[in-house]
Structure formats: C-alpha cells, structure tokens
C-alpha cells in the first residue's frame, strides 16, 4: 500500500480573472490520519480541495490517489475513488427529508425504478449506528439545525463509501458543544481507518484534532509539520508570516452615560416569527458592548431594528436619550448613528459606484454635500473622499475607481472610514472584520477601540468569539432571540460563554446567583 492516500503535485490554479489561487502546491495526506489544512481566507485551502473533489479544474498539476495517477473531472470521479467532501455551504434540499437527502443521487431501486425506501432506511440506520451520527430521518431538512444538517452531509458521503473525507471549515456553523461531538466523531472515524482532511483557520482546532498540518499562505505551502511538534504561536506565524498581535492594548476606561438603550425589543424575522424576543441592554459612552452567539440567533434582526432597517414590533430604542424607535436610517444618521453593516456588498457599499460616491452613502442629502437646490457639491464630495482614503489608508487606484476595484479589506476600510468620519455618538458594528486578512482586521479592531477611547458608544456584533471577548467591555450572549446573560469578558470562562451560546442562561450556570454588575436579560 502506498504511503499516501492522496498526493497532489505542483498544483497551479489561475482563475479566469487572472487571480492566481495556487502557485505550485505540493500536498500529501497519509493513509488514516487527520490532516489539517490551515490558512487564512484566500490562502487557497478551499480551492485546493475543490480540485481534489472535482468541482474545480486545476490549471496545472498531478493528483495521485493511493499511489495511482488519476484524473478527477467531477465529484462523481472523486466519489468513485472514495473521496467525499462536506462543503462549508450545505448542498441539501430543504424540503426533502434527511433520509431522502442522504440517498439522493444513489438511491437503492427496486425493479420498475421504484425507490426502495426500506433498503435505504436500513442502510442509513446501520450507518448512523456505526458512526454515532444520529439525525431524525423523516424530518424535512429545513426543520433541522445546522449541526444536524452537517451530520446529514457527512452521512451522505459515508453512504457513498467515502474513506477519504474532506471537511471545509466544519466548525464555523457549530456551537462549542457540537464542535466537541464532531471532534469525537472524527477521532472514531480515524480509528476505523478513514483519512480526513480538515480545512480550518482556527489554531485551537488544529491542535485539538489533527495529526499533521499543512499551512498555506497566498497559494503557497509554508510547510507540513507534525502537530504535536509545533506550538500555536509557531502555527500562527506560519499562517500569517509574522507575529500576530493577539492582545490589543485596551486601556481601562470609566464608562459614561448611556448613549444607546434598547428596551424589551421584539423583532420579527423574514419568516414572520419573532427573531428577537424581548432584548434589553444599554451601551454607554466609552464602552464597547459585544454581542456574541452563533450566527442566526437574531443578531441580524436586532441590528436592523436598531439601525432603522427593520421595524420592531414592540419595545423602544433610545439614541442619546431620544426615542428613535422605528425611525428611518437617515434620521438616525442625522442624530449621530454610524452603522458598519454585516454584509458589506448587500448594504455597506455599492460596487459599481466610485470610491468618492461610496464615501457619501448616507450623507448624500446633508449639507455641505448637497446644496439647497439638491445638487451634489462635487468638490466637497471629492475632498471628503480624499480625506477618508487618506485617514483610513485605503489602497485604491483613486477616488474615481469603482469600489469593485478594491480588495475586501479596503472596501471595509472605506465603509468604516465613512461611518467614523461622520463623527457618530453611537457606532453599531456588525461582523466588522468578516472575511478580512489579518492586517485589515487588526486595523479595524484598533479603530473600534479608538472609538471607545474617544467616548463613543460601540455596539459590536460578531460571530467571532475571540473578537468579541478581546474588544468588549461587556458581552451579551444571544441565543434564539434572547440574551442568555451579560458578562464581563475577564470574569467569564470560555466554557461558560459556550454554554450560553448553546442556550443555557447565565443565572443557571452560576447557580441562580447572576452577577450583580451585569444587567440581566429582559423579557
């Protein structure tokens, strides 16, 4: 038997747009190991694995599976070689049941082409018992949690006899408890002789689960090492190419009077059900109030209700003491709100607009940008845009370049710069560093801290737990539309936060005695 289950040699991938995603990557995975593939966003991890799974074609390079040279042109080819991949974004059909999703595309059929439900069920149940991955088979997938959906995806691969499993950022959508379960499952799979490739950018996970790890940086392999022989700091250095500042300097600061108050807020989500159920908190000047929680627990709706993009059903929002419940965004901006929205392409920026045009989004009707005749003052706009670009070190060909010509980090800097140049009393920042590289992330985090130090109130909503804990003075954990508790980061353990993210209330964790200084939840 060959030493390597998979060997990829000299993989090059150039996208049609000219982006070089892989610059000659050599990658080898031993039979029966859990192999971490570590790198930042855009390092090429996913691209490399998509080539292996046949969803992307390489520009150059050879693939060997168990020592044999192979051509993989489609997932079907990959599957035939025993390679299965669980994508970051699930590929399930929401209205089909779990069972139907598992067998879809490879259904046992009786004569006359009828689906043999009995046989399918028997096989999937056997598989569930073997692996310990249990899901309600007759429930439509749309009613299942993300953790369960992920299990279905994995079952789907195992059902097709995959013995090389690729998992792309599998923990991104999981609660800490679910992550634990997943890791236990992966270890069992390894004992059974399966080979696993684990894509991640989380150092802790690499240390926790992998045998060896390959680090990618900007399309190149930095190195492949035995996990036991490297420290987390060494891995971080390999990944980003320099020492990472894990601790930002946060000066102690006495908070001032409340600048943003949310009282018993109830907000409906897209489906019409309540996504926010009686949330109350206040953010004071000189304070960062963080909201942690697994995504999809009402954070988006909460932010939209506060920033005028969604009407709350009940409750009040006060901005600097003034009741602004249900006010439209331009009223809020005029009263001192800055909003860094969670999805920058959907909300924060207009890709076809120039940098200059984007720099006044939300300001287009305010003097001095508009005169009394409704005409935009081009020279004022251009001066402003230049200032934003200069102050926030935005790397752009010029202020007349379309925003689409900027990298993600610079687009985000443009948004952050614009919102901060408004000189807001309250800044609402939702997922402000999502998808950004380390340098841009650090920049944005520093800027948020500066906002706090200048006495502004900052509401930070982020799915990145480390970020929330690092920056916030107080943290509220959201679960299914409610705050499970409000804590100070220095007084809480990761386990406690994890439990709250999984739906346990702070007072239950602390045995009924909630912390005195942390406001309890409303509703």
């Amino acid at each position, binding site marked *: 038997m060959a030493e390597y289950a998979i060997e990829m040699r000299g993989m090059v991938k150039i996208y049609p747009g000219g982006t070089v995603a892989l610059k000659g990557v050599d990658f080898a995975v031993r039979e029966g190991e859990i192999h971490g593939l570590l790198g930042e966003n855009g390092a090429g991890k996913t691209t490399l694995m998509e080539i292996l799974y046949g969803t992307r074609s390489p520009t150059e390079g050879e693939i060997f599976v168990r020592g044999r040279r192979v051509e993989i042109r489609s997932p079907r080819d990959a599957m035939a070689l025993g390679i299965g991949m669980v994508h970051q*974004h699930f590929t399930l059909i929401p209205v089909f049941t779990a069972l139907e999703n598992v067998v879809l595309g490879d259904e046992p059929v009786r004569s006359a082409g009828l689906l043999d439900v009995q046989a399918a069920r028997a096989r999937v149940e056997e598989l569930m018992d073997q692996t310990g991955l249990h899901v309600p088979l007759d429930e439509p997938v749309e009613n299942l949690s993300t953790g369960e959906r992920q299990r279905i995806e994995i079952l789907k691969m195992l059902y097709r006899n995959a013995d090389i499993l690729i998992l792309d950022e599998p923990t*991104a959508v999981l609660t800490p408890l679910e992550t634990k379960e997943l890791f236990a499952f992966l270890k069992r799979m390894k004992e059974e002789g399966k080979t696993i490739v684990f894509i991640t950018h989380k150092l802790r996970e690499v240390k926790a689960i992998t045998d060896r790890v390959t680090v990618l940086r900007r399309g190149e392999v930095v190195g492949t090492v035995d996990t036991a022989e490297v420290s987390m700091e060494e891995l971080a250095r390999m990944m980003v190419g320099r020492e990472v500042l894990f601790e930002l300097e946060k000066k102690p600061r006495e908070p001032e009077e409340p600048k943003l108050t949310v009282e018993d807020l109830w907000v409906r989500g897209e489906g019409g059900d309540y996504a926010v159920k009686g949330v109350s908190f206040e953010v004071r000047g000189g304070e960062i109030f963080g909201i942690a929680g697994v995504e999809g627990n009402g954070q988006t709706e909460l932010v939209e209700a506060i920033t005028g993009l969604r009407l709350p059903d009940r409750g009040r929002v006060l901005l600097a003491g003034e009741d602004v419940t249900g006010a439209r965004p331009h009223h809020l901006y005029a009263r001192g709100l800055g909003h860094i929205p969670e999805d920058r*392409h959907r909300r924060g920026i207009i890709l076809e607009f120039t940098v200059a045009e984007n720099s006044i989004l939300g300001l287009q009707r305010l003097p001095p940008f508009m005169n009394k005749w409704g005409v935009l003052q081009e020279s004022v706009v251009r001066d402003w845009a230049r200032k934003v670009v200069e102050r926030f070190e935005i790397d752009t060909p010029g202020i007349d370049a379309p925003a689409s010509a900027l990298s993600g980090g610079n687009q985000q800097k443009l948004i952050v710069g614009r919102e901060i140049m408004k000189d807001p009393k309250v800044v609402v920042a939702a997922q402000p560093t999502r998808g950004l590289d380390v340098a841009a992330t650090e920049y944005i985090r520093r800027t948020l801290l500066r906002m706090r130090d200048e006495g502004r109130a900052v509401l930070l909503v982020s799915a990145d737990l480390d970020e929330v804990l690092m920056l916030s003075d107080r943290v509220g954990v959201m679960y299914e539309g409610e705050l499970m508790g409000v804590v100070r980061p220095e007084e809480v353990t990761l386990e406690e936060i994890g439990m709250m993210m999984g739906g346990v209330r702070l007072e239950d964790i602390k045995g009924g005695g909630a912390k005195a200084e942390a406001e309890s939840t409303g509703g």
Partner: protein
Amino acid sequence: MRLDLRQYAKPLAESALSVLIGVAVGTLLVILAGYSPVVFFKALFGGAFRSRNAFLDTLSYMVPLTLTAISFAVAARASVFNIGAEGQMYVGALVANAIGVVALPNGVHQVVAILAAFLAGGLWGWIAGILKAKRQVNEVVSTIMLNWLAFYLVNYVATYHLYDPKAPYKTEYVRETARLPELIPRTSLTLDWVLTILIAFLMFFLVWKTSLGYEIRATGINPTAAEYGGVDPSKVISISMFLSGGAGGLAGAFLVLGRFGFITTTLTNILNWGFDGIAVSLVGRNHPIGILFSALFFALLYNGALEVQVATATGGKTGVPIELVLAVMGIIVIAVAVPGLWDMVQERLLLRRKRVEVREEAAGTVGGE
C-alpha cells in the same frame, strides 16, 4: 463622478460592430428576396440625406424617439422597467391638444401646454410607480395596462369631445399661439428639437449631478444598500416613474405642438413612438448622450425605409415590400441592442456572484488567544 471619455470607447466599438453584423445578416435576406443589397442599404442609410427636407425631417424624428427613450432610461436607472412611455405619450399629447385649442397668448400658451402635458404624463407614470412601491405590482404589467387605458381614454376624448367638426376623424388643430416655432421655415424641424437636446442634458445632470440622481442610481444598482444609505426606495421609485412619465408626456406634447398640431381619433399619427423608445434607450445604454446618437440612428433608418421602396423599384419591377425593409431594420436593431442587454444581464450575474463569494469568504479571521 467625472465624465471619462474612455468609458465610451467600448460601447461605441460594440455598437459599430453590431451594425455591421446586422447589415451582414440583412444582406443575406435582401439577396434571398432577389434585390440588390447595395441599392437597398444605400437607400436605407442614405435616404435621410437625399434632400434638405428629408434630412431635417430625420432630425425631427429624433424628438419623440429621444424623449420616449429618456422615459425608459430614467426608470431603468432605478431598475424599473417602464414599458409605459407609449401611454404616457398619449395622455401628454391629449392634454397638450386640449390646452392648445383654448385661447391663450403666444409664448404663454406653449409653456402652459408643455408643462400640463409633462404633469399628465408624469401622473400616468407615477401611478405605476406608486403601485410598485406600495403594493409590489410588477411595473411591466401595470404600465402595459396603463397604455391601453391611455389609448382608450384619448380615443374617447378625441372622438366625443375634442374632434374637429370639419374633419371628425381627428382632433381640432391647436391654435397658432400654441404651435412651436419652426427652426427653419416650412420644415418639420421646430423648437422642440432644441428643447429635446436640452432635456437629454438635463437628464444627465439630474442622474449624475444631483442627490436625487444619486439615490435613483443607488436604488437601481443595489436597493438594500440604498436603504442602508438612508434612501427610501419606494419614494425614489415613484419619483423616477413620475419623471419618466413626464418625459413620455413631453414626447406627446411635442408631436402635437410641433409636427402635427392634432391627433387622429384612433391615434394613428402618434402610435408606437413609445415602444421604439425602448429600443433607442437600450442601444444608447440608458445614457442620455448615447440616446441622442441612438435616436439619430433610428431616425435615419426610419427615413431611409421610405426611400428603400422607391430606390429598389426599377424598370417596371416594384420595389422591396415594406415588410422586408422592416425585417432588415429589425435585424439591425436587435444586433445593436444585444450588447446593451448583454451588459445589463452580465452586471446582474456578476453582482450576484460577488455576493456569493463574499459569503464564502465569511468565516472570521485568525482564532487566537
């Protein structure tokens, strides 16, 4: 925000190539029908230049083509598909005609008639806009319905109230005080031609230099980002549909106060300009300056079409049937409109792909502690 001439090079080259492709395909059709393509296309493209009057007439065709195209383009900038320039033009023509027959002093008369037609057309467009903004009524459906409403409304008023007793197949002539002065005596080229060019520049100013235009474009490209930017999309949609309708109304007013002086009771003398405007706007990439050139191009074809039939009739043989001329024109128009349409589709797809990519990136950064 600046006018960068280089950005127009690509669309111009594409349009030129498209015309060539259209002509090539048209040539096949003409040969198959047994006519000389040389004579055919010489007449089609050169017909407008056969005489001074023909050329001036061609220029005056630009007026309704440009205005109905602007009607389409203003709404299109807000991503609203206004198919209603036709109906907006009808009501504009009717109101201009109705005001044109009352007694008002010269100078004032035209201004009043034009403004009233603008408001009437604007109102007609606004109905579709407000239905879309408040009730999510698809504007394609509502504007087509409003076209028919306008048709029968004008048909009714013209037949029973505004008809000319001496010639009941048409409305009363508007008074001399309401007619637009001729730029060159005894030709169809009247003051409205100058006004139309001004309106095209006005549209440019409105869309690219004002806050309202900024909000219209923002809404058209990315309504959720516009909403975030403090724009009320329903307000922008209804305003842009009002302005759109107003441009359509002006097209009707200028046809009545300039070229014709009346409407036939079945509207035959003003039919279809509104629909042609859609094609003019697409070829002109929904840009007012592009629209001016595109309108000139269409006007040349229309005038040339008349000449083709005459030119190809030689030695006792009858000329090319009008259907063939229209077919060849159709081919050219389609060929020219395709790049613009293609761009619109591409932009949508590109935007969607970019959004997906962003979500795929989304996963936080270095997990450190």
